[in-house]
């Protein structure tokens, strides 16, 4: 559907200007910008997690009615979350588009990217900052290596990761690590 929108060149795609410099300096430049975006995203996540919005989100997870009965405006909270999530996605999207300097709809609207994002979430687990981060490095690394050595079997590798994650870490790898090695909180102060 997006392919047929006249926006950004439609199915033809859109070329974007390259910044000046040698390929090496350009790569370094984008590396630094991506790193900055990562830091901004993590900082935003930590800020939300520690603050009022974070508690409102935890209340929402337990149920809309419970959250409301604590005075949480559930609609406003959900809209705020969507907006923040969209803002971060937009931020990285803008940098990404310039870094590849040519965009076409399949870049981000293909099934592969959506699947990849879900695999990262599945593997990383919920209610964790580090989990999805580590999972993103792992999944991205695995896909790149597969493409390098075995060409187009990367989607198959994603499938294998999904199966392994569901079998071994049904609540995400971060929850697995937490339960295994940091089972400190429950039962403490007994």
């Amino acid at each position, binding site marked *: 559907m997006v392919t047929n929108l006249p926006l950004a060149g439609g199915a033809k795609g859109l070329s974007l200007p390259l910044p000046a410099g040698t390929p090496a300096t350009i790569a370094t430049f984008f590396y630094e910008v991506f790193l900055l975006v990562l830091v901004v995203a993590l900082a935003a996540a930590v800020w939300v997690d520690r603050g*009022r919005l974070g*508690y*409102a989100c*935890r*209340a929402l997870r*337990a*149920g809309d*009615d*419970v959250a*409301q*009965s*604590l*005075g*949480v*405006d*559930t609609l406003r909270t959900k809209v705020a979350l969507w907006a923040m999530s969209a803002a971060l996605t937009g931020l990285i999207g803008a940098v990404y588009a310039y870094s590849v300097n040519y965009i076409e709809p399949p870049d981000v609207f293909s099934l592969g990217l959506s699947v990849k994002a879900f695999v990262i979430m599945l593997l990383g687990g919920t209610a964790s900052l580090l989990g999805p981060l580590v999972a993103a490095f792992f999944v991205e690394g695995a896909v790149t290596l597969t493409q390098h050595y075995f060409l187009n079997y990367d989607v198959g590798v994603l499938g294998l990761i999904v199966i392994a994650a569901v079998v071994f870490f049904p609540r995400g790898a971060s929850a697995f690590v937490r339960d295994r090695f940091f089972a400190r*909180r*429950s*039962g*403490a*102060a007994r």
Partner: protein
Amino acid sequence: MSALLEATALRAGYGELEIVHGVDLRVEAGEWVALVGVAGAGKSTLMNAIAGTVPLRGGTLRFAATELAGRAVHERVRLGIALVPQGRRLFAGMSVEENLVAGGHVRSSRGAVADAAERAYALFPRLRERRRQIVGTLSGGEQQMCAIARALMAGPRLLLIDELSLGLAPIVVDDLLEALERIRRDGTALLVVEQDVDAALRYATRAYVMQLGTIVLSGASTDVRADPGFGASYMGIAG
């Protein structure tokens, strides 16, 4: 002076089903009012209608002279109505302290949240001892304390408690009742649903008896208890 909470010919229910058929109920500021009746009488529906989780179908409902019809649950919390729901609905995976902080959502600053938590801990010293403990590992009585403390975090003028003693040992219920009496003395009005009549009427100044969605008996707690029809017809107790 008008009442803190005043329901007139209040009707409420779920979807097509009307459960509360025209209830008149009043709670004065700083008063403890008991709401009793057999299971299925409509007590919870009435409580939820006051809190706003069940829609009104008719009648009027005023809180501190503000009409509540059409006001969302979170707005009513800001006006000063807090509900301790049936089954407590705590965040079982979070610590006592985190539950309280979540309850302080409507507070304007971290300092205000901390002050409110300090007052809650003063009321329930057990919770202070167990502030870092995960709520799911607390005893039933401690969980009920935590649910009450979480509701108090919003600084309500009216605290609604649906099923105070369900599944709790009598000695624990005594502690809870004493804590509630301290809360009332600090100026918070209470509307408490309770199955155990003795516990329900011990501190309450007035009581309402509900049956099949209507109030069938009301008045001072002692008068309600002394009413010849109270035990047999309304509470389903023989003799």
